């Protein structure tokens, strides 16, 4: 197991290296550079040229890459061109929000998707089945901006249940410990801050969860259908076990295996899905920051964030793989 983890981590290195090279060349080949973004409508060719020169953007790409790598290897991800704050600071500040959002979205997706998927499988062909398919499709096909708009209009503006923007009420003077607002509130016993932060998470998380929810639902449905056909379920029935035991221990425990891998995969897509959700809900996370960084050609931020994204993605999948060996004793990691 340990070897497996080490091995997988070591395997990440060339991937990250390749990714960084690819990204670097790619980003620097994009038309327009940070100088245009910095100057906006007010840029004159002379000013642009000066900034480019000052920033070393007119040097050969490998020289730039060499400098970049040198800095990265010394542990410095650089400073954001647009906010003038270290990329790591930005990351530490914004990532917790995205994680909170992603986690809550995952909880929604799993918490709703699995029971619904199970129900759909159990009542295969019934109206429940059709409804879940429909709802899933709706979630997949409706653009985030539209879904977010509707949620906000209904649950916030009309019903007044939830706030629509931000991570926390601006008037709450909460103490920041970890950057995870919900957690911070709990740690400092500022319960109202914690609850308020959670309320701020509900709508964006619902929006973000729409696709994973559909996926989890579908995978669960398919997987439950498959497991229900398995011989061991018949064996369990033949032992006269109660429905509950059969459902929990025999059907769901097995049906969860493919769902688990999917969740790993989904986390990656959730991270990139967060991009638009965060914008729509003015939620301060890495997602919206990346969008801005693309606009601003903020190379250090883009490089740093995407590499970290990739790393997180890889780590999550590693965790899923490792946890697999706990969920499914048959799995031998190699």
């Amino acid at each position, binding site marked *: 197991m340990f070897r497996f983890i080490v091995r997988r981590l070591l395997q990440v290195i060339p991937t990250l290296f390749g990714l960084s090279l690819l990204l670097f060349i790619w980003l620097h080949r*994009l*038309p*327009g*550079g*940070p100088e*245009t*973004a*910095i*100057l*906006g*409508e*007010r*840029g004159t*060719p002379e*000013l642009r040229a*000066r900034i480019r020169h*000052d*920033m*070393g*953007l007119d040097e050969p790409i490998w020289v730039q890459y060499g400098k970049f790598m040198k*800095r990265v290897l010394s542990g410095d991800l*650089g*400073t954001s*061109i647009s*906010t*003038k*704050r*270290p990329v790591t600071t930005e990351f530490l*500040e*914004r990532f*917790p929000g995205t994680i909170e959002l992603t986690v809550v979205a995952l909880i929604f997706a799993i918490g709703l998707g699995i029971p619904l998927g199970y129900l759909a499988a159990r009542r295969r062909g019934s109206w429940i089945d059709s409804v879940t398919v429909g709802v899933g499709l709706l979630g997949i096909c409706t653009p985030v*901006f539209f879904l*977010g*708009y509707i949620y*906000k*209009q209904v649950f*916030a*503006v009309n019903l*007044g249940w*939830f*706030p*629509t*923007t*931000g*991570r*926390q*009420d*601006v*008037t709450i003077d909460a103490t920041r410990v970890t950057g995870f*607002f919900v957690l911070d509130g709990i740690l400092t016993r500022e319960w109202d801050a914690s609850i*308020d932060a959670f309320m701020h998470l509900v709508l964006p998380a619902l929006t973000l969860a729409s696709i994973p929810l559909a996926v989890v639902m579908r995978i669960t449905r398919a997987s439950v259908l498959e497991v229900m056909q398995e011989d061991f379920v018949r064996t369990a029935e033949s032992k006269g076990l109660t429905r509950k035991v059969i459902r929990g221990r025999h059907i769901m425990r097995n049906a969860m295996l493919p769902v688990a891998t999917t969740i790993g995969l989904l986390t990656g897509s959730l991270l990139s899905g967060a991009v638009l959700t965060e*914008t*729509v*809900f*003015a939620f*301060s996370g890495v997602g919206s920051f990346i969008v801005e960084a693309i*606009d*601003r*050609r903020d190379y*250090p931020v883009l490089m740093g964030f995407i590499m970290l994204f990739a790393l997180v993605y890889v780590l999550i999948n590693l965790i899923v793989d490792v946890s697999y060996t706990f969920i499914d004793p048959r799995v031998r990691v190699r």
Partner: protein
Amino acid sequence: GCAESDRADDSSSSSSDKTLVFGVAGDAKALDPALTSDGESFRVTRQIYETLVRPEEGGAKIVPGLADKFEPDSSGLKWTFTLKKGVKFQDGEAFNAAAVCYNFDRWYKSTGLMQNPDVTYYWQTIMGGYEKNESADLGQSLFKSCKAEGDDKAIIETTKVTSKFPSALALPSFSIASPKALQQYNANQVTGSADDIKYPPYAMEHPVGTGPFKFVKWDTANKTVTLERNDTYWGDKAKLKTLIFKTISDLNARKQALRNNEIQGYDLVAPADVAALKSEGFNVLTRPAFNVLYMAINQSGPAKAALSNVKVRQAIAHAINRDAIVKAKYPEGSTVATQFQPPGLDGYNDGVTKYEYSTDKAKALLAEAGVSNLTLKFWYPTEVTRPYMPDPKGIQELITADLQKAGITVQLTPAKWSPDYLNGVQANADHDIHLLGWTGDYGDAYNFLGTFFDHQTPEWGFTNQALFDAFAAADKEADAQKRFGMYKDLNKQIMDYLPGVPVAHGPPSLVVAKNVSGIKPSPLTDERFVNAEVK
């Protein structure tokens, strides 16, 4: 959503406890106005700092600010600023001529990264250089020296006469900061390298000025900047206790947040929403249109042969139904632009040549010019709205339809506003026509006309030495009235030469809740919250 409203209701009858949350489209970049040039940073620092001169509230005309009086000597090079008395910085330091000069010297003596155009943009564009220039591209500084004469007189000498001085001193970048705070928080220590600029703590956490609000905190994790009433303010104290700027970049999100009473106002209202918001009882505050949208015609682009012929440019101008565009895509109060500067700004010329909508005329002019099968590469920005351009794509589609009616083939190139689009139309020549505009920085026509036409640029692609010389002359004219006359001539000259087609002046709006009053919309987006009240 109700949390805020509860809180607002809870607060006692005294209006001085009230909080106003104002939605803005982007984060501030830094809170040292000398180091920033963007509107969102300025919006915040305008509440914290003040400048020697400032635009009148709700207008663009220059009126006294921290200086009660400002006068040039006969040469026009030496200006005496008589300062307000009894003003204190928010840290308790006294505001006086020494402080003013300290600030000017700080800017003037910038070294290293402080000379980076990204850092001290406005100093550089207005003043042109520093005490010791570190780049060959920089010129001689307009600013020569600042001397304190007693506590209340600051004498500022310039190296030449220019239209910019002193009106440009109204720019927030020339805000006067507390020298003590500047020193204490190492305001000048911009570190790192050009591609890795790090700002000092002053710019991020410790801004201290003389304004009606003082800085409390900048919560980057929740995207808010919180300000508080400055109780030692020299003028009428702010009515709000707390003023919070909350970043909500998405347009619909701002609107919904307002409806949900999470914010009590926001800027950049989409014109399309104005009517709806008004009918819902919100106060829509419309600014005077201090901007212009134009369709530039590039004379060194792919179709340069045709476009360098003024007849062809005229044909294009005639082909476009600007009336329809303004009616369909602009809010109430918008006007069709006849020239490249907004009306109401000195220099506006009612007598410029106008190019009315006439497809036939356009066709005739094209025929006259001997141009057939004209194909134009039309750039338009996507995913952006600007105060002068509420729906670029929609406007483009209307223009395209018009041009096609006149027999012109249009080859469309969409691009993301930043940096692709700006880069494409401002730094490269691969465009024939494109949409762009300008919102004035300060109240002088040169800020419009000169910015566009006082030298050759890839955006317009023409060289017209006579025109350039005329601009240089106007800029040097010390007598304002004379200068305005020259601007009028310039406007006429430009519209005859027709480097592009001015399209519209659209008044941008901001909106506040029904119970909010005391905010006066400003053409320069210089809205002051000092008198804002929440009922």
